[in-house]
């Protein structure tokens, strides 16, 4: 059976189409101000990519912060459920899933079947989410990919004391003025977000293996910093931003 999962995030809509557990297509579009319209376009794109027609998609499940705004979905599941299901499919050994998105971070403890045992999340504060990195990249006047690249070359940390993204932005500006190396500032920024997420995740049991997913998992500097803060190895699957949508597509087939 062919099914689709749609993950409506704060910043991007992700669509995954699966056929009997096999991924046929993936598509990502900015969420914009009309999530339903963006979801529809993202789905159409994925259908086209898969070389199938709309009628072939038997069931659609939505997830993510904007999951309730997708009227054409057959049902919706929470992003926590979708994360665990998707991560389990890709990495069956995973017992702890950490998802860092643009405006939210979650830690999920799951069993061998990908069922949720416990979870913790932060959706109140940008300091532990992707928005923090973007905000700091703006202050550094560089693009995020460049920020990641220079961060990985940094040898020492710049002192960033602020937790709040708004305060950290002013702090970064004054660090630049005092001629601190941008690479060290970038490194400190990544370290700060990883430290925030790690302390949030510590509210649940952290059993091996640990996986990092969500759009921010593409940031190698944060993945490195997460390993340091958690003291365990962290697995990052390919296309980590699509794991939740994959979980939703699998849930649609169940």
């Amino acid at each position: 059976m062919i099914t689709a999962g749609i993950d409506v995030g704060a910043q991007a809509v992700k669509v995954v189409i699966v056929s009997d557990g096999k991924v046929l297509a993936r598509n990502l579009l900015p969420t914009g101000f009309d999530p339903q319209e963006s979801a529809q376009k993202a789905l159409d794109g994925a259908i086209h990519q898969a070389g199938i027609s709309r009628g072939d998609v038997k069931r659609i499940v939505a997830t993510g912060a904007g999951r309730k705004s997708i009227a054409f979905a057959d049902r919706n599941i929470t992003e926590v459920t979708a994360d665990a299901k998707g991560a389990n499919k890709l990495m069956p050994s995973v017992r702890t899933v950490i998802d860092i998105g643009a405006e939210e971070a979650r830690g999920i403890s799951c069993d061998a079947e990908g069922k949720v045992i416990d979870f913790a999340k932060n959706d109140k504060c940008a300091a532990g989410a992707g928005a923090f990195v973007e905000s700091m990249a703006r202050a550094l006047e560089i693009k995020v990919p460049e920020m990641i690249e220079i961060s990985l070359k940094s040898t020492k940390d710049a002192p960033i004391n602020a937790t709040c993204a708004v305060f950290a932005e002013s702090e970064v500006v004054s660090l630049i003025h005092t001629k601190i190396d941008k690479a060290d500032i970038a490194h400190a920024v990544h370290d700060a977000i990883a430290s925030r997420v790690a302390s949030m995740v510590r509210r649940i049991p952290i059993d091996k293996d640990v996986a990092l997913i969500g759009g921010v998992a593409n940031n190698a500097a944060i993945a490195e910093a997460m390993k340091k803060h958690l003291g365990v190895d962290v697995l990052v699957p390919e296309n980590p931003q699509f794991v939740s949508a994959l979980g939703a597509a699998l849930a649609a087939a169940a």
Partner: protein
Amino acid sequence: MTTEYFRWIEYAWKNPDMDWHKAETLVAGIDVGSVSSQGVVLADGQIYCYSNTRTGSNSPDSAKKALTMAIEGTGIRPEDIKFIVGTGYGRVNIPSANKAITEIACHARGANFMGGPTIRTVLDMGGQDLKGIHCDERGKVTQFLMNDKCAAGTGRGMEVMAELLQVPITEVGQMSLDVAEEPPSVSSTCVIFAKSEAIGLLRSGWTKNMVLAAYCSAMAHRVVGLLERIGVEKDFAITGGISKNIGVVSRILKELGGIPTVTLKPDAQIAGGVGAALFARDLYLKSKK
């Protein structure tokens, strides 16, 4: 040049009915906050002159500027001032100060002096922090709570919104009250998230005034939440820069359900500086004994 909507005009004031030459002692308090700095001079225990300036990139210069602007045109020379107490975020780095005292003690003391002995709860809404302070009839702190970790509910958060909406910071409060009916509050706590939420609201057809109303009421709600953790005893007073934002203040008072409130004269933003100057006077007189 781009307009900086967060900017407000720096100013100084002096008491026209007083002659400082007749005073026995002049003392000063300097409050170097994260966003604004105030210099206050007391002549025999009365407020003679003060300034309200924008904090620069370092505390020593900001403190100097605040005091210089306060005494400008009065004929007072820095050496005429017998004792200076520094307070605020930058208090440890004020070379001219004889002593540094925390802003919590200074705000309570300053509010007590300007608003009278009935004040029991002082809410200080600063540029980068938020404090709830309980004090006794002499303005002595009995309990306090502060948030300096998060920009929500602070002046800096309001600056971000003013910049986003391109509204001068001094007009935010009035504009937020100029709405046909009160819209639902912005739901995000985080200023960064509130910013994206505000952009979404504007796209969906909300006016700037409505967005400001929704943000001011969210800020008021957050502040009241902090205050309720220490309890709000009457009388109530607000200090700090946001005390001048009628949109936030009126919504806080509404949420507090008509609590007896004292307005601080001549200026609620100088409470920290006034308190510091009062401590300076005590310390100076004690040293003379």
